[in-house]
């Protein structure tokens, strides 16, 4: 079991191999479908982002929130299916210089390549475990694009403590855990026959 704190450096990411279990602390931000497109569009237009995303970890998630007297409270925030973001993820990594992504369900070849090239990783968190994830949030630091994109797709900036278990599914060396597992199962089934 490994523990990491954001912002991450290249050498932090290089410690990770596909199949490792990691717990994250520090600042992370939620981003998915239209959030990613919005951020990519802003950078391409030369507009400055509300915060620097370099070294941070992107969380594919859209929370359940409650507004309290003290500000926003997140009650549940498990991951969403990452594969929907496959088309834009490589460009997103490239443009923002994030060092990690957390989601669920796995990602494809384009993301594997981008993680290798930019020294980043993709990890999976148990899908549906939204209440557990919410317990690791120490503070909702801010939110952006809420009015325009709505609650699930707004960018929520969170301070987390020991957010996990996260399993490294794509490391910075070109390994994809799901491909490895599928190959192993195919191998075993072949031997059975």
């Amino acid at each position, binding site marked *: 079991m490994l523990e990491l704190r954001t912002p991450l450096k290249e050498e932090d990411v290089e410690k990770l191999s596909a199949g490792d279990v990691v717990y994250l602390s520090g600042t992370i931000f939620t981003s998915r479908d239209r959030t990613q497109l919005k951020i990519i569009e802003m950078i391409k237009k030369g507009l400055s982002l509300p915060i620097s995303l370099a070294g941070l970890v992107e969380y594919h998630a859209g929370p359940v929130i409650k507004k309290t007297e003290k500000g926003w409270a997140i009650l549940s925030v498990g991951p969403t299916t990452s594969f929907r973001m496959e088309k834009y993820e490589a460009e997103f990594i490239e443009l923002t210089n994030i060092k990690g992504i957390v989601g669920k*369900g796995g990602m494809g070849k384009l993301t594997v390549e981008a993680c290798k090239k930019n020294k980043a990783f993709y990890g999976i968190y148990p899908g*549906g475990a939204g209440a557990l994830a919410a317990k690791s949030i120490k503070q909702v630091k801010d939110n952006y694009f809420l009015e325009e994109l709505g609650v699930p797709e707004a960018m929520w900036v969170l301070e987390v403590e020991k957010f996990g278990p996260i399993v490294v599914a794509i490391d910075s060396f070109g390994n994809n855990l799901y491909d490895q597992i599928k190959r192993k199962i195919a191998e075993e089934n072949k031997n059975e026959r």
Partner: protein
Amino acid sequence: MKDEKLKDYIKEAIKVSVTSLPCDVKSKLVETYEKEEGLSKVFLKAIIENVEIADKESRPICQDTGTFSFFVRRGNFEEYKIREAIIQALREANEEIPLRPNAIDFLTRKNLGGNVGRFLPWVTWEYPEDNILRITVVPKGGGSEVLSVTRVLPPVSQEEEMIKIIVDDVFEAWAKPCPPLFLGIGIGPTSEIATNIAKRALYERKVGERHEEEAIAILETKIMERANKLGIGTHGLGGKFSVLDVHLDYASIHPASLVVSIVGSCWALRRATLVVEDNKRAEIVSHNIKLSD
């Protein structure tokens, strides 16, 4: 019974459906955790911990509080009154639990800010001949829909062809629909009938309960065994359990078509069934919760 009371009962059932798993689903997860190994076991442990936190603190189990469907046997209540109560309960639940606003307008893609929209919530009516009102609340997460498939086969198709479609579908989806899964399979003459049957089989029967006809019960077990040989495990991390249960049911088919519909649920098979007998009892039977007057 006052309309207000009915709305409050339904609101409670909505809350229970998103914050607590039914007893049978919870026991199945614990049983699976005990038998599973490796990284899948690590994730199952987190999942069970999550279910306990959600239950204790009344937090949504999953941040995707789903799209709401209601299966209603209306007893001696009037349909429009039940519909009104459901919509009002959903609006209030949206703020009070709270729920995630998941209704998006198709044309503008604007978030409507709640869970009521065009044709939503979806209500299926049934008319049994008794005076008992029975409402099953089903919040269905978006991710678990990745698995949904409807296939029209020639009516001469044999069992193996159907099993292959189902097993290939589960394999293809891999980790996306949040396995280990629960499957509802419907067979019928049209896509609409087959899908309705699949949904009902998934949500009305208890986990572990086999079909009353032996031939179908055997088929269910066969599908489950074949799917578990895929080795997908929890969230695709590899393991012995990819599918936790299969509920299959059928309607008579047509000379030219045999439709197979697959409806999947993630490990969090969320449902809550409210039973109301006027002036006698109100109970969420899926969770053994008695509601007071």
